[in-house]
Each structure stands twice: as structure tokens, then as C-alpha cells.
């Protein structure tokens, strides 16, 4: 798969932060949403699978900017016995304790999409593959590397 080309310029109807919050509250009832200077801060629980622990996670979003997500508890950690192997598909991968999941590539997400229907589900899915990576040493969720290589 080629690297995605810059999409043609067209007007995207950005969903505002309050609407984003409405859908988050509806689809993910455990989430609390707060606003601060135009920024949405959502915090809640997700359980990626029927054998996963409950994670407390956070999401921060300002209209038109890429959303940021992070895991609060249980904190993300590297594989046992492999202290030098970073967690796959994270920002700040080299800095233990500061890793944040990398959920999508470029235009997978746009500001006319609902976070509740995209980013949060992808976050669950990331956590599931993170757990499987812990067990097996393999990242089985596919994805694109920073250098553009396609693991899909």
C-alpha cells in the first residue's frame, strides 16, 4: 500500500467538542467529559476483551487538531525480560512511562468523524493487541511504521 497522498482540499464539517462529548457520553457511559478553553478532556474505563483488565484512559481533543490518548492505569509497560524493546505503535516509544498509543495514520481520522465511533474503539483494539503482544512478542494488529513501511 502506498503512503497516502495529501487529500484534495475540501471543506470538512468539523464536529465541535461539545458534540463529540455528547456521543462519547452516549456510547461510552463510563466516560466523564470536561471542557477547558475549547479543549475536551474525556476520562473513562475500557475493557478491550473479556479477559482484559479494566483500563482507565484519557483523551484530549481540540477541534481540528489530532486527538491525544493515553493510558492511566494499569500503566503501559514493556515485555518482561525485554527492557530494551519499546512498546509497538506508540508515541514517545523510547521514553518509558510516557508512551501514548498511536491509533491511526493520517486520514484514517478526520475532524468530521466522531471520536466515540473511531478513536475510542481503536483505542480498545490497540489495548487488545498490546496485551497479545505482551503474551506473544508479536504485534498482530498490523499498522504503518514511521518510515512508511506497511505491516498491514
Amino acid at each position, binding site marked *: 500500500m502506498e503512503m497516502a497522498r495529501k487529500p484534495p482540499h475540501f471543506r470538512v464539517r468539523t464536529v465541535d467538542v461539545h458534540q463529540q462529548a455528547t456521543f462519547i457520553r452516549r456510547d461510552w457511559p463510563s466516560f466523564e467529559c470536561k471542557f477547558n478553553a475549547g479543549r475536551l478532556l474525556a476520562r473513562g474505563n*475500557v475493557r478491550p476483551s473479556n479477559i482484559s483488565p479494566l483500563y482507565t484512559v484519557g483523551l484530549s481533543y481540540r477541534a481540528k487538531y489530532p486527538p491525544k490518548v493515553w493510558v492511566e492505569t494499569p500503566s503501559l509497560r514493556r515485555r518482561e525480560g525485554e527492557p530494551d524493546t519499546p512498546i509497538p*505503535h506508540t508515541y514517545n516509544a523510547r521514553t518509558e512511562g510516557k508512551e501514548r498509543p*498511536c491509533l*491511526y495514520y493520517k486520514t484514517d481520522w478526520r475532524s468530521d468523524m466522531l471520536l466515540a465511533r473511531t478513536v475510542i474503539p481503536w483505542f480498545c483494539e490497540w489495548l487488545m493487541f498490546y496485551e497479545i503482544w505482551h503474551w506473544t512478542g508479536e504485534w*498482530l494488529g*498490523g499498522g504503518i511504521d*514511521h518510515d512508511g513501511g506497511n505491516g498491514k
Partner: protein
Amino acid sequence: MVVSTVSSGSLLDVWLDEICRDIQLTKSQYGDAVEKYEAVANWLTRDGSTFADIRLRVFPQGSVAYGTTVKPRGRDEYDVDLVLLLHVSTDDAMAVYKAVRDRLYEHDIYAELTEEMNRCLRLNYAGRFHLDILPAKPQQGGDGSWIMVPDKDLDDWSPSNPEGFRDWFLEIARAVYVRAERGTEPLPAPEDADAKAPLQRAVQLLKRRRDIYFERNGDGDDAPRSIVLTTLAARHYRGEHAVAAALKSIVEGMKREISTCPGILEVPNPTRDEENFAEAWDLQSYRRFVAFVEALHADLSELDALEGEAVGERLEEMFGENVTRRALKAAGHRFRQARVDGTARVTTSGIAIGATATSRSQPLRDHNFYGDGP
């Protein structure tokens, strides 16, 4: 021909499903079985055979017919069962048994492979499988599938109903079976062998757990028969779509039934109750069975309560280390493929595949994880 409902669910269910795919007959083993089954059916029924002019039917029974095969541990051979139903009315059971035996001896290769068992003639394809040929005659009454099979210990006929049983089991599994009227009924096609219903998966897992448990806890000879596990599983199955849930209610049902039964449990063929599948149990072997069900119950309760890495450890202990690890990787691949195909869904309980669309679930949209891969 078998049409079945594929099991579905969250990570644990898909993991268990993949464990089953790992432990069942491989496609090539299955193809091998089909070939040998058809060849011997042909030998028994064609021109020149003792039975050439007799009205007859050949059909499969056992785990290959129910879709619940499990590669046995310890010895290398699995079982393929064939019934040769001859429309004769003789009272002489041993004469029929011997006629089948003698027909096999007429064939150079089969003569080398034939072993006499109590009811069937076994072709021992050493290192591959046992092809068990059960002679039979029809019997009036019942649902039209009643048969009598020769029993050497009894020196007489013994009642049975394998077809009724198979139809009963597959109906509960919601795997529909279409019967052939005469001639040789084929084994289910290999493609169908891959898509299994939750009850079929549960039976496979019970059998696998049994194999490991009795290997570890002494006597393999005392292990409960597969037909017993299969019958009890089907009787206590409540139609769950997810394998883990199916297993749970099956084991709870078995435990309940044992506790309300004063003596040794009987496990009659539900389609013919004079046939008691558990007739071989004595006090000792029955106690071992009860302990096994207790252990199963404890396993599943623990599994329910565990999270994360501990789950994998328990599954490894229950079903075997290598099988469990391979199965998890296969499950991971399946989840990714489902996302790409558009069949993955997400709810507040997590990611699921094959789940029926409900108002509380939404599709998991395809995307690419970014950042440095491993």
C-alpha cells in the same frame, strides 16, 4: 452435507476456537480419512463382494461425523468410524461379523490391517488412524434408525442407534445434516470441517481437557469415553453463541446432574435408551469421572475470575502450552482480518468478531496503527 453456525465472540472465545482448530484433524489428515473410508466402503459393497446383492448403506458415526475430532495424545492414531448397515434379518450375529471380517481378509492390504474388536473390525493404519467398521442390521421400532450390532462378548446382537444420535447431536449444535438414502454416505466435506458450531467446539475442548487431565492424573484407561462427554455436553448445552459460555453451562449442568444422582450415572443414547454409553463405569472409574468434572468446574470458574497473563497460563495448563500459544497468535490474526473485512464490532465490553449486530454494538472501522512497529 453439514451446514453449521460458526461460533463467535471476544478474545477468549476466538482463542478457544483457535485451540480447537489446532487440535482437530488437519485438512490432509481429513482427506486421508475420506479416501480410506471411501475405499473400504467400495470394497465392501462392490461387485464380487459377499454383500454385492444385499440392500445396504454405509454411513459415518463418531467424532468425524459429529465434527468433534481431536488428535489423541500418547498414541498417534485417531478414530474414523463407519457403519455397514446390511438389510438382513438373521439372528446369527457372529455370522454377520465373520462375513464382514472375511470380506476384509479377501483383500491383501486390508488382511494385514484388520484387527478384531468386540463389535467392530478395525483397520489399523498405524501412525495415522483406526478405521472402525461396524457391521449392523436394521431393527424395527424407534425413529427408523434403530440397528443391532454384533457383540462378541454377548455372542449376540446389541441395540444401538448411531444415526439417531448423530442427527440429535447435530440438531442441538444447530448443524443441520442431510442424509443419503442408499449407497455410501460421504464424510462431511473438508470445508465444512473448518467451520464449527459452539457445541462442537465445546466437545472438542472437553475431550482435549480429558486427555491432558487423565494423562497427568494417572490412568488413561479410566478416562471417560468421548461419546459420554458428547452426550452430556449436548444435553446441557443451552444454545450459547460463545464457546466459553457454552462450556460453562455444560460443565455446570454436568456437575448438577452428578450431584443429584445417587449411584453411578447412566448416560443413555437419547434416541435409544437401552443403549447406555456409560455401561463400562465401575465405582472407581466413575469416581475419577466425578473428580474430572470437579476439576473442569474449578478451571472454568478460575478462568472467569482471571485477567491478563494469568488467563494464558491457565489455558496452557488446561489445553497444552504449545497449542495455546499458537492459538493466541492465530486469534490475533483473525481479529485483524476481521477489522479489515469489516466484521469486527466493538461494545463497552470490548472487541468482538462474528457477533450479531445489536444496538449496543458498533462496527470497528478499519484503520492503521501508526508509530514504530515492533
